């Protein structure tokens, strides 16, 4: 139908042109149109198909799971810190025990060392008129690690 319309139209506009035989002067390689769909499919598969964007708030299940996860994290964090605080106290006790043991050990070592000295191994010291308090102060300043246990331990060695 449209063919007849276009022929009539062209006949009125350009009758000489209408007399020309209408044909396709171009050609394509053999089997081109049989292979073209496959070639197009291959080109398409190389292109990455855009993945659909899903809004977090569009699905109530996503929102519910998000809230649940948030609450779990909050509770887990709360109980973790409670436990840590408790452990902290225990750790402090343990440290104090360790320090006490270390202090005893060090004191014993010095005491043994002094007792094992022979007279000739001891240099004469100037005749200082030192009181016990001064000696204790000196030892306390010099052996700072005895600070926490000076009085008791030193007294016990005397």
């Amino acid at each position: 139908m449209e063919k007849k319309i276009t022929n009539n139209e062209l006949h009125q506009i350009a009758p000489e042109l209408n007399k020309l035989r209408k044909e396709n002067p171009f050609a394509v390689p053999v089997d081109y149109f049989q292979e073209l769909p496959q070639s197009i499919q291959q080109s398409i598969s190389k292109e990455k198909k855009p993945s659909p964007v899903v809004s977090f708030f569009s699905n109530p299940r996503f929102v519910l799971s998000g809230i649940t996860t948030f609450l779990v994290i909050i509770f887990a964090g709360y109980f973790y810190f409670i436990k840590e605080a408790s452990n902290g106290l225990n750790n402090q006790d343990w440290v104090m025990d360790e320090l006490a043991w270390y202090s005893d050990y060090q004191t014993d070592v010095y005491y043994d060392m002094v007792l094992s000295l022979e007279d000739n191994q001891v240099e004469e010291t100037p005749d200082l008129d030192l009181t016990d308090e001064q000696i204790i102060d000196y030892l306390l300043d010099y052996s700072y690690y005895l600070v926490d246990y000076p009085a008791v331990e030193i007294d016990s060695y005397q």
Partner: protein
Amino acid sequence: MDHYSDDKLLELFHHGNNPNYAFGLLVRKYQEKIYWHIRRLVLDHEDANDIVQEVFIKAWKGLENFRADSGIYTWLYRIATNEALSFLQRKKRRFFIPWQDVENNMLNKIDSDSWFQGNEIQKKLQRAILKLPEKQRVVFNLRYYDEMKYEEMSEVLQTSVGALKASYHHAAKKIEEFVTKD
């Protein structure tokens, strides 16, 4: 395979189990029309082959959101026309040459192209078509070779039917004059 209507193909693509299959049917239905439309604009087979692939890749991407406000047929023609004209524009810009020289190159291609099988009159007709402004060339090809209705052409080129009729009238007159002289 041509018995599937556009609506049926769209339904298969959107709601069927295998969109690739539906798209393959669409390609088979329109590949020749689209290829020849492009080929008449760019003349060279290799160029036409590249462009037709690009057209169907764009169609594949766009078909997801395609709403049947316009027919698939005119939609594909619109993509093909835009791609072919963009290709020619790029070619012109790439080599910094005026359209006159691009036209001469294309004319020479007709003479040397092994895939051109027309006689002298056909060569003369193609030369006459090449001398038209781009838009008139598209209008003439769509009406003369594809016998497309003006209403459909209006959807493809987004131009009024009256303007298309006037464009075709001028183009046909100019071509007749070129072909019949000497």
